[in-house]
């Protein structure tokens, strides 16, 4: 390996106008200015097919998204897709039929997915239009941001020593 810094994309997914779906964009705000300069931070509101293009050229993708269907609102899941699949009983909400799981599966099939994908899922409670984030989800934003900063550092470090 060359030891060049791994190109890491942090992708925060969600719609701030749909209650707990705003968790992703809120994490993006918390991360602004806090990531290493060679890491890229993006916020996207839901067109998963367009997002596949955003991943192009990155060595690692760190996603954060709200998820429905869990039993503990505000609970943070760290899922390393090299080790496990996205849980099927949790819905990663997105408009127009293509959610995060489908987007990643399609990108992998097409050979467009970064080799490393880490997903941070925050269990949401309410995704109604025009509502605020629920308190347990809002409380999870800062801890997730902290975990992502550490994750990005670890990913870049891993490459450095590879």
């Amino acid at each position, binding site marked *: 390996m060359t030891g060049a810094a791994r190109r890491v994309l942090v992708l925060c997914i969600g719609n701030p106008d749909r209650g707990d779906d705003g968790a992703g964009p809120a994490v993006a705000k918390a991360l602004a200015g806090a990531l290493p300069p060679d890491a890229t931070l993006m916020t996207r509101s839901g067109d998963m097919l*367009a997002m596949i293009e955003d991943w192009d050229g990155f060595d690692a993708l760190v996603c954060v998204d709200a998820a429905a269907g869990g039993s503990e609102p505000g609970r943070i899941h760290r899922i390393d897709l090299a080790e496990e699949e996205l849980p099927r009983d949790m819905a990663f909400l997105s*408009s*127009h*039929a293509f959610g995060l799981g*489908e987007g990643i*599966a399609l990108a992998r099939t*097409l050979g467009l997915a970064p080799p490393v994908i880490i997903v941070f899922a925050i269990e949401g409670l309410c995704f109604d239009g025009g509502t605020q984030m629920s308190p347990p989800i809002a409380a999870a934003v800062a801890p997730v941001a902290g975990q992502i900063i550490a994750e990005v550092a670890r990913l870049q470090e891993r490459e450095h020593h590879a």
Partner: protein
Amino acid sequence: MTTKTIKVEYLARVEGEGALDLHIEGGQVTSANLRIFEPPRFYEAFLQGRSHIELPDIVARICGICPVAYQMSSVQAVENAFGVRVEGQLRALRRLLYCGEWIESHALHVVMLHAPDFLGYPDAIRMAEKHGDIVRKGLALKKAGNAILRLLGGREIHPVNVRPGGFYKVPTKAELVPLAEELKAARDMAVDLVRWVATFDFPDLERDYEFVAMRHPDEYAITEGRLISNRDIDIDISDYETEFEERHVAHSTALHSLVKRRGAYLVGPLARYALNYDRLPASIQSLAREGGLGPVCRNPFHSIVVRALETVFACEEALRLIAAYEVPEAASIPLEPRAGTGFGCTEAPRGICWHRYEFEADGTIRKARIVPPTSQNQPCIEEDLAAVAAPIASEPDDVIRHLCEQSIRNYDPCISCSTHFLKLSVHRS
């Protein structure tokens, strides 16, 4: 007699939530109801009291796939009410923006949502394992359409640059150069797409549709024209309510549209193609023949070919508009609000999108009426389903279910627009 029920809990690859109930008695299909249970969103009500200036940005929110259709019909209605016409390069830019929407919407439907039906895949992800090249082309086409929306509309979804009288900002010629390069590649990919979908096996079905579409003297109508049908309708868009009516039906929260004197009618790609074949450039007509299409196509399953063909057309048309582009003197023309009623009608990817607004003297909206394409197609979808299911009523439920789902997707239905997932039930007795 025994009653049998087939259920598809969530029909994937359609926009919105609904269900289908199919009743079969003694081997005969007795009814096919497309049940739309998505709650109405009351756009027409909450537009009341809002400014005409806000209108295109509010109605854009009706749909994430076809926001331009709602924007274009609404600004046309404003301009109609206030007695102005947007001409020249501003008109051309609107047509270019609309081409972008056709490209992204059609490519998404043809490749990602509909093609898996014909090849026996459950979804585009599984299809991509064998047909990765075509899926990549579909995504690239969608990207090219989105690039037009981003440049002219400010962003891909729910554009923010459209205003009554024109735009807030218009592009420079230089800004269109990279777009043209992307569209040239997109055009070639769309041609490949036509040739690919034309090889599919299509179920035999010919339906005697009343096609309804817009017709323009010089163009394949997108942003303006008269409303015509293959029967006897040829009217100004302001006369829509004299020929067409909407009815409440118990099984749908979306209104059903009918020709008052006759009943169901079809809007969308098949209707546009049949009524405006002579307005297509020779290159597109030639490609249609190569794809096995005559000037009129009555097999709803061929809609995927027509949709791919319209994608090629939209790419070529966009390139033509870009080549002829000169920066207009102003990004918009001035409007003087006045009391009155205005009408707008344009060809959304799924068919005509008709709007009527009454305005106060200061341009405040007093009343709004919006008729989206999918609600107009509902009765036709139900007739198609009955026709599709009739000859296979004694077949296993899975066979009926698959063909019915495919039939619904012939329409690229946007249930969200018309009032999200579809549940299919077959009741046999």
